[in-house]
C-alpha cells in the first residue's frame, strides 16, 4: 500500500514538473525572445516622421491577388497597389474599355492572375528604376510596369509553358527578361495520356527581348528543355554575364504525387544556359519557327488604351542544335532558389529538401566545360561532374532553405522555411555568421538591388507565409507579412513587422532617389489622344448611333458636363466616355452609374476613360463622382432619363439648362 502511494506521488510530481514545460510555457518564451530581439532604438530606425519620405521603394508581389504592392522602407507603409494581372474595381482596371485588353489571353479574358517575382530593370548591372517586370504563374504571362506612371504598360503571354514560375528576372542591361516553365506540358498541346509524361512532356525557357528605349517586350526565342520543373532562375552577372541559371526539381519526371515521386533523386540540377551563344545562333538564322498562339497586350500611353494582339508563331531552339550552350550542374536536393552573388562567381542552389546550400563556381564551371568533365548527359544535355563545378556545400545551416540574397561584403542571407529563420553566412568560408528567427515560415527575402551587381545592403525584407499570433486576429484568414531587418552590422537586427497583400512572393527594392524624381505628376490634357477625349466643356455632347448612345462627358471641380441627359431608351448600350479636364496634381474624379454591370472609373487629370451601361429599367437614374474631389464633391452628380424601348423622347443633353457650348 505504501509503495503504491509512493509511486502515485512520484507520478504526480513528475506530471506537475512535466506540465511546467508544456507547449504553452515554451510558446510564451518564444514570444518573449521575439520581442526581446528588438533593440531599443529599432523604433527610431523605422520612424519616418509625418510628411517625410522613406529612403527606399519596395515592390512586393501581391501573390494570389495578382497585383504589385508599393511600400516604403523603412516605414513599411503601403502607398499603392498597382493592378497587373487581376481586375481592380477600385481603379476600374480590367473593367473599363481601355484596360480590358490588358487581361486578354489565348484562353480569352481572364480576370485573375497569380503574380510572383518582381524585378527592376537594370543598366550596367545596377537597378535603374525604369520598369518593374513581374510574372504570372497560372496563365503564363510577363508584365512590364512603368515606374514613371506606376501603371502596367505591357503583358505578354508565354506559349508552350505552364506554371510560369522561374520568371521574370532580367539580365544586367535588361537585354532579356526570362520566363521558365514549372509544369512540363505536351508541346504542342495534344490529347495524350498523362502516363506518357516521361520524355513527351517538355518545358520552355523563354527569353524576351526588351527594347532599351520603349521597354517593349518580344519573345526572341524559346529553349525547348526536358520536362523537369524549372523552379527559379537568376542571370549571371559581371564575369558570368551572358549566362542564365535555372534550378530544377522533378528530374524524376513524375506526374502524380510529386511530393514523394519528385523527391527521389538526391541531386537535381541547375541548368546553365549560355544565352549569348544562343542569341548568336539565332542571329545566324538558327532555331525553328513553330506555330503558337499567345496574346501580346500593349498599353498606348498617348491614347491611354490597350490593344491585344494574338501572336501566331514562336522561335524554338533545341539544345542539341547549339552544342556548348546548355549544361546541367548537379545540385542537392530539389533546389528552390537559384541565386547568383553580386560578383557573378557563385551560383547557389537552395537545396530545399537536403537542408544544404550548394555553391557552384562559375570559374570551375568554365574549366569543367573546357575539360569536358562530364558525368554523362540527360536528353543530350551534358551533366557536369559535381566535383568539377562545385565550390563547396554549406551543410545543414537550417531546415528548408528557399532563397538567398547578398550584401556587398561577401555574405549571403538565406531563408529557411521549416526552421523559420534567416541565416547570414559567408560564401567564401562557407561559415554561418548569424541567424535570426522570423515569424513565421519565411519564403522569399529581398535586399534592395538584390538581383544586381550592386546590392544596396542596409535593409533586408523577409516575407513570411504564416503570421498566426503576430497581429490582431481577423477570423480564420489572417494576413501574411514582411519583416524588416537592418543588416548593416555584423548581426542582423529585426526592426519592424508589416502586413502585406496576398502572398508576397519576392519583392524588388530600389533607393527612392532613383524613382521618385521621375514619377509622373500629371497627364497633360493637350497630349490626350484618346479617340473619345473631349478637351473642353463646350465640346461635351451625346451622340446616338443606332442603339448605341455615346456620351462624351467632361468632369471638372465639381460638375459633369452634360449632367442631364434624356432620350436614352431601355435596350440601349450607353458608353460613358469621360474626360477629367483637371490639370492640377492629385485631383482625380470618379464616376459611378447606378445599375451598370461594371466598376466605377477613377480618372486622373487629363485622361479619358470609358465604361458601358445597359439600362434595363425605365426611370431617371443618377450618376455621381466617387472620389472626393473638392468641397463640392457631394454636388457632383447628374441624371439620365431612361424611356421605354422604342419611345420617341428626343435625345437632349444639358448643363445648367443649356446645351454645353451654347450658353451666352
Amino acid at each position: 500500500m505504501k509503495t503504491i502511494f509512493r509511486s502515485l506521488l512520484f507520478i504526480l510530481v513528475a506530471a506537475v514538473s512535466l506540465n511546467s514545460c508544456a507547449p504553452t510555457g515554451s510558446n510564451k518564451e518564444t514570444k518573449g525572445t521575439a520581442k526581446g530581439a528588438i533593440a531599443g532604438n529599432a523604433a527610431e530606425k523605422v520612424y519616418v516622421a509625418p510628411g517625410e519620405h522613406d529612403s527606399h521603394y519596395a515592390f512586393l508581389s501581391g501573390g494570389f491577388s495578382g497585383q504589385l504592392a508599393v511600400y516604403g522602407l523603412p516605414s513599411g507603409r503601403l502607398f499603392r497597389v498597382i493592378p497587373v494581372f487581376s481586375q481592380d474595381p477600385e481603379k476600374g482596371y480590367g473593367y473599363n474599355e481601355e484596360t480590358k485588353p490588358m487581361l486578354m489571353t489565348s484562353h480569352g479574358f481572364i480576370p485573375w492572375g497569380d503574380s510572383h517575382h518582381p524585378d527592376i530593370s537594370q543598366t550596367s548591372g545596377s537597378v535603374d528604376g525604369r520598369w518593374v517586370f513581374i510574372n504570372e504563374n497560372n496563365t503564363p504571362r510577363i508584365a512590364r510596369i512603368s515606374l514613371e506612371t506606376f501603371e502596367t504598360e505591357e503583358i505578354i503571354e508565354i506559349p508552350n509553358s505552364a506554371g510560369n514560375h522561374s520568371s521574370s528576372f532580367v539580365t544586367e542591361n535588361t537585354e532579356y527578361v526570362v520566363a521558365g516553365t514549372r509544369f512540363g506540358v505536351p508541346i504542342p498541346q495534344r490529347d495524350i495520356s498523362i502516363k506518357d509524361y516521361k520524355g513527351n512532356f517538355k518545358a520552355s525557357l523563354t527569353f524576351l527581348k526588351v527594347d532599351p528605349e520603349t521597354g517593349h517586350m518580344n519573345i526572341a526565342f524559346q529553349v525547348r528543355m526536358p520536362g523537369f520543373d524549372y523552379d527559379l532562375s537568376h542571370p549571371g552577372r559581371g564575369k558570368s554575364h551572358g549566362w542564365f541559371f535555372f534550378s530544377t526539381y522533378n528530374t524524376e519526371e513524375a506526374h502524380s504525387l510529386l511530393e514523394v515521386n519528385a523527391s527521389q533523386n538526391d541531386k537535381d540540377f541547375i541548368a546553365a544556359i549560355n544565352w549569348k551563344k544562343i542569341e548568336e545562333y539565332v542571329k545566324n538564322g538558327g532555331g525553328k519557327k513553330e506555330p503558337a498562339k499567345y496574346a501580346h497586350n500593349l498599353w498606348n500611353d498617348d491614347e491611354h488604351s490597350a490593344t491585344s494582339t494574338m501572336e501566331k508563331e514562336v522561335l524554338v531552339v533545341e539544345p542539341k542544335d547549339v552544342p556548348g550552350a546548355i549544361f546541367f550542374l548537379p545540385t542537392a536536393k530539389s533546389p528552390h532558389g537559384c541565386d547568383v552573388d553580386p560578383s557573378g562567381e557563385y551560383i547557389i542552389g537552395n537545396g530545399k529538401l537536403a537542408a544544404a546550400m550548394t555553391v557552384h563556381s562559375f570559374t570551375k564551371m568554365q574549366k569543367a566545360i573546357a575539360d569536358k568533365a562530364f558525368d554523362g548527359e540527360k536528353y543530350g544535355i551534358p551533366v557536369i561532374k559535381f566535383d568539377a563545378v562545385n565550390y563547396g556545400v554549406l551543410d545543414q545551416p537550417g531546415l528548408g532553405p528557399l532563397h538567398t540574397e547578398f550584401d556587398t561584403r561577401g555574405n549571403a542571407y538565406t531563408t529557411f522555411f521549416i526552421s523559420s529563420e534567416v541565416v547570414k553566412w559567408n560564401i567564401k568560408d562557407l561559415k554561418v555568421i548569424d541567424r535570426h528567427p522570423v515569424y513565421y515560415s519565411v519564403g522569399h527575402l529581398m535586399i534592395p538591388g538584390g538581383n544586381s551587381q550592386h546590392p544596396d545592403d542596409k535593409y533586408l525584407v523577409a516575407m513570411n507565409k504564416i503570421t498566426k499570433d503576430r497581429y490582431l486576429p481577423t477570423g480564420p484568414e489572417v494576413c501574411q507579412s514582411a519583416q524588416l531587418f537592418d543588416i548593416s552590422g555584423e548581426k542582423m537586427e529585426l526592426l519592424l513587422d508589416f502586413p502585406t497583400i496576398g502572398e508576397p512572393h519576392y519583392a524588388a527594392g530600389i533607393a527612392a532617389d532613383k524613382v521618385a524624381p521621375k514619377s509622373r505628376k500629371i497627364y497633360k490634357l493637350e497630349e490626350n489622344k484618346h479617340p473619345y477625349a473631349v478637351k473642353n466643356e463646350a465640346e461635351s455632347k451625346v451622340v446616338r448611333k443606332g442603339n448605341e448612345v455615346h456620351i462624351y462627358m467632361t468632369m471638372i471641380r465639381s460638375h459633369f458636363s452634360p449632367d442631364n441627359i434624356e432620350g436614352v431608351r431601355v435596350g440601349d448600350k450607353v458608353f460613358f466616355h469621360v474626360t477629367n479636364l483637371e490639370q492640377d496634381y492629385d485631383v482625380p474624379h470618379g464616376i459611378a452609374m447606378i445599375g451598370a454591370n461594371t466598376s466605377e472609373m477613377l480618372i486622373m487629370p487629363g485622361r479619358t476613360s470609358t465604361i458601358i451601361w445597359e439600362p434595363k429599367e425605365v426611370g431617371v437614374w443618377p450618376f455621381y463622382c466617387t472620389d472626393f474631389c473638392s468641397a463640392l464633391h457631394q454636388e457632383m452628380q447628374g441624371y439620365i432619363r431612361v424611356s421605354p424601348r422604342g419611345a420617341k423622347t428626343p435625345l437632349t443633353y444639358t448643363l445648367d439648362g443649356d446645351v454645353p457650348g451654347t450658353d451666352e
Partner: protein
Amino acid sequence: MVSLFKTELTQFKLYKIMKISKILMVVGSLLLLGLFVFPLWKITLLAPQYPEPLGLNIHITHLSDGVQFNDVKNIDLLNHYIGMAHLPTEENIKTGKAEPFVEFKIFPIVVGIMVVLGVVFGFMGKPNLYLTWLIIMILLGIAGLYDFYNWLYIYGHNLDPNAILKITDPVTGKPMGYQPPFFGYKKILNFEVYSYPDIGAYAIAAGMVLAFFAWITGKKEVKR
C-alpha cells in the same frame, strides 16, 4: 550704321566721361526689354493642400504659370468657388468667359516707346533728356502701379452674386472681399498670399537707377 558706329568710336576716344553716361543711359533703357521676357509681378498662393505653391506671373503681355505647369488655370478654377471673375487667359477669352486686358496691348507699346526714347536720348547725350526720361518713367510707374492696384480691387470685390461660397466678414458683417495683397503678405481664407515684384520690375528699377546715374555723371561732364 557702320559709319555711325565708327563716329561713336571716335567720340568715345575723345570724351571718355561722356562714354560712361551714355552707356549708362543706353543700357538703362535697354534693360526695359527684359519686360518682354520676365514677369513684372508675381502672386504666390500657399495652402494646406498646396504644399507646392500656386503662382501667378503677371507679364506686360500676358499671365503665366508662376510655380508649376497650369497654375493660371488652377488659380482660375479655385477662384470660381468665391465667385471671382475669370482671368483673361487665352482659353477664357476664346470661350467668352473673360475680356482681354487692354493693358496687355498698351504696355508693350509704351515700353517699346520708352526703350527707343531712352536709346535715342542716350546717343544724343544731353543729361536733361536723361532726367526727362526718368521723370516720364516715374509717372508711368505710378500709373502702372495704380492700374495694378485697381485690378486687384476689382477682382477682389466684383464677385458673382451666385458664388458657391459667400463668406461675410465677421467684423463688418459685409460680404468678404478677396483682394490679393498689392505688396507683401495677406491671408485669404485657406490661402497665404504673397505678392512681390518680379525680375521685370527689378529690370525697370535698375534701368531707372542707371538713368539717374547717367544724369549725374552727364551733368559733371558738362561742367567740366
